[in-house]
């Protein structure tokens, strides 16, 4: 009897997830507008994830102070990474919308953009996981280099797609200081 209840509950949850995905898919089709892209200060982010900076702070600060500062830096990096992940999600949608283009170059650029955005989304998930571990143990380091690389690759893909779709309007996903 317990097994039956457990399996029925599992079936109901699965059904609920399927119906929820169906509803959100239908809503997305009706409402084509997407949230905007939030620009990221890449330079500040690069500074936060720079291992040389970590090393410098480690040498200069007492252990307790270093751990406190490092935790602050990790939280700041996590905030940047979350924004990068959200931007990647928006760009997945933009790229997928452009996949239906009749122009071969635009379609290829869109496919590359989606692939890069998915890679970034994957990397941000892993990086956030590691950052949370690093907040608990600050000596582990940031390990966010793949995110930075992914974001840079995404920049060039978004720019290429933007150029192909609308040469007069630029796309920006990083802020420029």
């Amino acid at each position, binding site marked *: *009897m317990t097994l039956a209840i457990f*399996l029925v509950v599992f079936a109901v949850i699965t059904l609920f997830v399927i119906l929820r995905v169906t509803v959100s898919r239908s809503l997305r089709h009706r409402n*084509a507008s997407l949230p905007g892209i939030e620009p990221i200060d890449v330079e500040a982010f690069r500074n936060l994830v720079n291992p040389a900076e970590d090393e410098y702070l480690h040498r200069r600060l007492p252990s307790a102070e270093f751990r406190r500062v490092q935790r602050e830096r990790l939280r700041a990096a996590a905030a940047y990474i979350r924004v990068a992940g959200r931007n990647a999600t928006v760009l997945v949608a933009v790229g997928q919308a452009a996949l239906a283009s009749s122009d071969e170059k635009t379609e290829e650029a869109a496919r590359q953009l989606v692939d890069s955005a998915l890679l970034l989304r994957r990397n941000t998930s892993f990086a956030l996981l590691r950052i949370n571990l690093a907040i608990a143990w600050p000596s582990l380091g940031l390990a966010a280099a793949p995110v930075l690389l992914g974001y840079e690759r995404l920049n060039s893909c978004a720019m290429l797609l933007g150029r192909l779709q609308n040469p007069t309007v630029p796309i920006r996903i990083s802020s420029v200081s």
Partner: protein
Amino acid sequence: MLQAHSFLWNYLWVAPNLLVFSLGILLWKRGFSRILPSFLAFAILTAVGDLATFLADVIPSVAPETFWRFFWAELLLESLLKFLVIGEVFSRVFSPYPSIGRLGKVLVSGFGALLVLVAAVIAGFAKGDSVIHIIATAHLLEQTVFIIESGLIIFLFLFAAYFHLSWDRLSFGILFGLGISSCEHLATWAIIANTSPSEHVRTLFAFLNMATYHVAVLTWFYYLLVPGKAPEKSMIRLPENNLAVWNREVERLLHP
């Protein structure tokens, strides 16, 4: 009306299979055999298998043991084809993107193996609903197959949702129909295989199973034959910026 071998019973057993068979033939004629080979095989072969089982049920000269052998063979064939269909949908949705395609394959293989293990353990703990071995094991096999099937389907939906990947109409329609059908079948087979309900309740569950499969078949008709709306262009508001400055910044980041 809600009795075994009533008109409604016969209709719900035969009609969905005739419909899915005709859907398979129609799609094959439209050249879908290259796009959805597994689904086409599933549509045609399971319909033939299920109709053969129906005939084995209604022809008086067929012995009960022969019927249950038919049932077993059809269940094994149908299960194999369904897993091929799920694999086909997975390839259609994730393979175009190598960045998550490989990760998806690793995760779906691992999760699939875990589901097989869990389903086997659950089957081991089930007490069985019949003293006749071939019937009890057939019901347990149904439960096992639907645990794995529902688990794989929910995994695909959640994995795509996490990455905000949109589904193409064909893949979504196939998995949606299969998902609805597998969830309902899992719930009913779990109750049948673990609680030994009365004959009347079993008959009601059989009606529910057949009706849900009918709905799934109609869902496939809708998604596979009715053309969807043309995709709209993204209306995202792009922030104002100077492309030359942006270009310079990217160059500086790429080549520090």
